[in-house]
């Protein structure tokens, strides 16, 4: 955590000035006032954390209370329907699954490929590499709905003209979460020590042979973690799907090449409905989505901790 600290830097000057101020105060203040102030401060900090945790608990709790009546198997076995009593998330779940299938298929080669290129083939200081890295960093901060507009403009319509189908949604979401996979993969690849690469090259293996047979196999846990985190993020995203025609109230079961629907989209449609019965469904749906994402993220972290290679 601590490292070399340059006492001449501006930051250091600020910190040192603060330390001087503290010293002066300490030597002149009565101890009793200090203790009281310290306690109040610590309590406020604890309050801050408590509020954050409480916020999460209330969020989950309120949905639990509202959606309790609909938290049963019907939620996942019934298709969506305009009759709330018969509505469920089944077709939305299938839609999400189809979309994620395509997403994984595109995400892994593109993300790992980019990471391998940046870590293994790139000259660290070349302008191309820096340009790519800056781009990845910026793309990670672009609002998700703009990705939806990108999908609308170039994928659904000309030049790719795919229409508003599962593949379009998948491509859009892939571009959205690609930076997550690239970042995680780069870290995993970087963790493989140079001695392994040297040992492989010294035997007469080519660069790609070394990458494919030594570096990548050793990086798989980190890469898998990144992919799972990216997928869980993609599953929860609603905004990019809106410009792609997600607003329609879909009741059929989607297939790989049909119009799509997805879990957050259906839940959003329920939220918009005026009938109170749909509110209970929305609450149940939100809980299911949160539970799914929490399980996936925890699994990803567990996976990395369990299979991480200690060198």
């Amino acid at each position, binding site marked *: 955590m601590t490292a*070399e600290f340059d006492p001449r830097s501006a930051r250091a000057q600020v910190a040192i000035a603060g330390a001087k*101020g503290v010293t002066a105060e300490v030597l002149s203040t009565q101890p009793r006032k200090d203790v009281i102030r310290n306690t109040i401060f610590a309590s406020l900090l604890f309050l801050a954390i408590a509020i954050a945790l409480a916020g999460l608990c209330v969020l989950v709790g309120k949905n639990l209370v509202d959606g309790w009546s609909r938290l049963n198997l019907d939620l996942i076995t019934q298709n969506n329907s305009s009759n709330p009593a018969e509505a469920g998330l089944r077709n939305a779940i299938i839609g999400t699954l189809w979309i994620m299938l395509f997403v994984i298929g595109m995400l892994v080669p*593109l993300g790992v490929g980019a990471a391998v290129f940046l870590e293994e083939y790139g000259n660290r200081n070349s302008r191309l590499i820096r340009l790519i890295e800056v781009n990845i960093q910026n793309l990670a*901060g672009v609002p998700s*709905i703009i*990705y939806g507009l990108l999908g609308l403009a170039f994928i659904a319509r000309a030049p790719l003209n795919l229409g508003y189908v599962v593949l379009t949604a998948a491509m859009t979401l892939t571009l959205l979460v690609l930076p997550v996979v690239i970042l995680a993969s780069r870290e995993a690849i970087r963790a493989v020590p140079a001695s392994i690469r040297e040992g492989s090259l010294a035997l007469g293996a080519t660069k790609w042979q070394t990458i494919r047979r030594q570096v990548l196999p050793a990086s798989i846990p980190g890469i898998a973690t990144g992919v799972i985190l990216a997928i869980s993020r993609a599953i929860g*995203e609603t905004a990019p799907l809106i410009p792609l025609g997600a607003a329609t109230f879909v009741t059929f079961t989607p297939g790989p090449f049909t119009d799509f629907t997805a879990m957050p989209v259906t839940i959003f449609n329920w939220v918009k409905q005026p009938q109170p019965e749909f509110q209970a469904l929305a609450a149940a749906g939100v809980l299911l989505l949160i539970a799914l994402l929490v399980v996936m993220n925890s699994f990803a972290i567990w996976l990395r901790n369990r299979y991480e290679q200690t060198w």
Partner: protein
Amino acid sequence: MEATGIAATSPAALPRRLQAQSPRYGEKVIYGLLAACAVLSVVTTTAIVISLIVPSIQFFGDVSITDFLFGTDWGPSFEPASFGVLPIVVGTLSVTFWALIFAIPIGLGAAVYLSEYASPRVRKLIKPVLEILAGVPTIAFGYFALIFITPQIQKIWPGHFLGGPPLIFSVLAGGLAIGLMIVPIIASISEDAMSAVPRGLREGAYALGATKAKVATRVVFPAALSGIVASVILAISRAIGETMVVLIAVGNTPQLTFSPVKSVQAMTAFIGTTATGDIPTGSTIYKTIFAVALLLFLMTLAMNLLSVRLVRRYRQVYE
């Protein structure tokens, strides 16, 4: 000693050629494929920029930039249409403002607590909870704003104060929900920045009898300031770009107001409501959507570049 081994190995055939035995085209193909994957990011950015700029240029052929940026009437679908973007920009910024009012004290408080006060056991408990909060999908926050925060505001708000009484949509409801959503961003990046402050600085102050509160506020916080500011800027960028919460809880009424309990429309909400799949390419409303999106993109881009530069600066000092 095993003396039998050597004689049995196959003799090294000499001399073998030093030239490459095969042209190894595969290696070059692979290099090309990998480079293409990496360059895809540049292609994506270019595509986004093109997709936003082309309709915007057409838009600004019809509507002057000053009318757009400084006009106070937003009604692109009305007859006659008005294209003053200020109401929805102010809508976005109002929501962001209230989000920050909530998120900055909570997020920074959590960061200071985790960095300076919490024991390792407590940290192990709290950090995963923050991670969970960071993983909650935005639609959950939006719905939470609608079904919980809004009724509470309606209960508490004193009558006609500041434009009340609050109805079903309000800036404050969306703002507080987004605030909760961005707490993990501020907390984790600020905590990183604080942890990077060398222990020696703290210990020097402690040795003089300073309390934890003093050390945290007068030594650690200033030293980590650029990282903290970076986290806030990143959080602002996230709040500006958030769609679902404002769509669900803040409403779609583009009125220019600073009241926290009125319904307004944010930029993202406008895009989300208007950009349904069936708007014709090249129509006025299509161009308007992309012009607003361009403005949104530029705002978040500026924030992100700024925060990246700040993060790089605080990392450089200590590494």
